């Protein structure tokens, strides 16, 4: 009789499924090997490298102005901020003073980048959890920022607008007007986002208390950005080590203490308001002046090691440059926020249901090319 009892799959041993590399909720080519007990997640093992391009190795054979264009392709939603990280690193090494005009334009552009990144996060996060309307609303508004980028930078997503010593070209005459129009529009539209998703009962039930990350774990795993701040880790580089024009604007660092998916989401929603405040403080105060400092035709950094960090939409991006005095860097290391944030996925999604893994992965807002580099 006992022999007749057939084994139920997943009952006595773990049931392993592959999520990805082609899965809509991984937002790219991330493969998660998930061990399940029934539908409870027991272990998540990310397999990465599908879009590994060897950016760090490529950097060793090209010059500093050329590196800018590779950094666009890491976290493509924070392209402008990635550019800025390399530029600030090079400028710090060469001890160049950057005029206020450049600093302010960079800051405004960074904050626009942050808003459009969070808009896309909101759009896809809603879509992952079944609210397809969010996707259309989010992309509709993001388009307005991309149009501003296109007018000034030429590129829409991969802007490559920064260069060591300043900007590639001056802002478009319409820039200030259009940014102000956008802020006016978006201040009215952002509450709609909350009406649509934040207050939704199903959404709250699916994100509250799901994937809780404690403050100790956030620090020891090095989780930065809105994901870390949702756990109470005060890690905003804009506050702690202000670069560009962040030292002259007033804004709040958004922190929560709960650290669940809902608060990671909320941190990003609140950051959009702060970003709009920052832009409004600066947009009317762009001084006249050159848009770029005159640099030597061949940029060579003095021998040494330089570390520059900036706050991208997803956390702290560190650029560690080792120079041997040549026109090419000897070694470049990008401490990319997504690579580090991925490391906590296994810890926080254990013992939740597999459907919650989608919510947790979405709330970490991972960008796969930034993980793989």
């Amino acid at each position, binding site marked *: 009789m006992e022999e007749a009892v057939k084994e139920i799959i997943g009952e006595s041993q773990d049931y392993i499924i592959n999520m990805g590399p082609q899965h809509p909720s991984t937002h790219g080519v991330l493969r998660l090997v998930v061990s399940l007990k029934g539908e409870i997640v027991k272990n998540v093992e990310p397999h*990465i*490298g599908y879009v*590994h391009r*060897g950016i*760090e*190795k490529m950097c060793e*054979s090209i010059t500093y102005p050329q590196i800018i264009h590779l950094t666009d392709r890491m976290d493509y939603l924070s392209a402008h901020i990635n550019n800025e990280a390399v530029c600030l690193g090079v400028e710090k090494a060469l001890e160049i003073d950057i005029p206020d005009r450049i600093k302010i334009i960079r800051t405004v552009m960074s904050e626009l980048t942050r808003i459009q990144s969070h808009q896309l996060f909101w759009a896809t996060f809603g879509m992952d959890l079944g609210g397809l309307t969010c996707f259309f609303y989010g992309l509709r508004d993001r388009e307005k920022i991309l149009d501003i980028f296109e007018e000034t930078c030429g590129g829409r997503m991969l802007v490559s607008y920064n260069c060591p010593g300043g900007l590639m070209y001056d802002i478009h005459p319409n820039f200030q007007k259009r940014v102000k129009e956008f802020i006016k529009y978006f201040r009215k539209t952002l509450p709609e986002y909350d009406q649509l998703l934040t207050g939704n009962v199903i959404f709250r039930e699916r994100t509250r208390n799901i994937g809780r990350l404690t403050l100790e*774990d956030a*620090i*020891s*795993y*090095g989780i*930065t950005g809105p994901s870390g701040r949702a756990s109470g*880790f*005060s*890690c905003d580089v804009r506050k*702690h080590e202000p670069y560009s024009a962040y030292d002259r604007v007033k804004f709040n660092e958004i922190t929560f203490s709960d650290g669940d998916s809902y608060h990671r989401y909320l941190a990003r929603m609140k950051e959009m308001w702060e970003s709009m405040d920052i832009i409004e403080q600066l947009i009317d105060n762009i001084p006249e002046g050159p848009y770029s400092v005159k640099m030597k035709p061949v940029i060579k950094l003095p021998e*040494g*090691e*330089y*570390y520059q*960090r900036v706050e991208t939409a997803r956390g*702290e991006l*560190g650029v*560690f440059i*080792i120079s041997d005095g040549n026109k090419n860097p000897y*070694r470049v*290391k990008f*401490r990319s926020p997504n*690579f*580090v944030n*991925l*490391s906590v996925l296994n*810890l926080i999604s254990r013992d939740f249901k597999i459907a919650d893994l989608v919510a947790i992965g979405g709330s970490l807002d991972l960008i796969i090319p930034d993980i*793989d580099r």
Partner: protein
Amino acid sequence: MPDEITMEKAQLTEFVKSLCSDAEVSEGKQFVEAVLPADDLHSVAERLKSDPEAAFDFLFCLSGVDYGKYLGIVYHLRSTLLGHTIVLKTRFNVRDNAVADSVCDIWPAAEYHEREIFDLLGIKFRNHPDLRRFFLPSSAGFPLRKDFVDDENIVVKK
């Protein structure tokens, strides 16, 4: 203010020297830098984390570097409570079988970074929970080494 920062740096320098007599500590341009023997690194790192005066709880960057003659690892540490930063470095004279002690037990953030370094530079880590290739297939070499040759994909400009 600048005086306070230099004071801080001097204190840190003394502190690391007291932990490890073989350490070469210098007040670098940006951060205090300490070059440690590979064998002492784990014990020093443990003290840096646990000692309330140092309290380096945030490992924010971990990079492997091929310096040509030797391989090296650079640890960037910060204290979220006290706000100071230190850079630890270690070097390996052997290229083929460089082994470091894993610091995963001190900072879990190191787990992925160490896997990346193993994958791209071929430095092994003792006591690492899961040391496997990360980005590349096992047939690939160690591309971040300076002597890496790939005739197909790397075009060397002459």
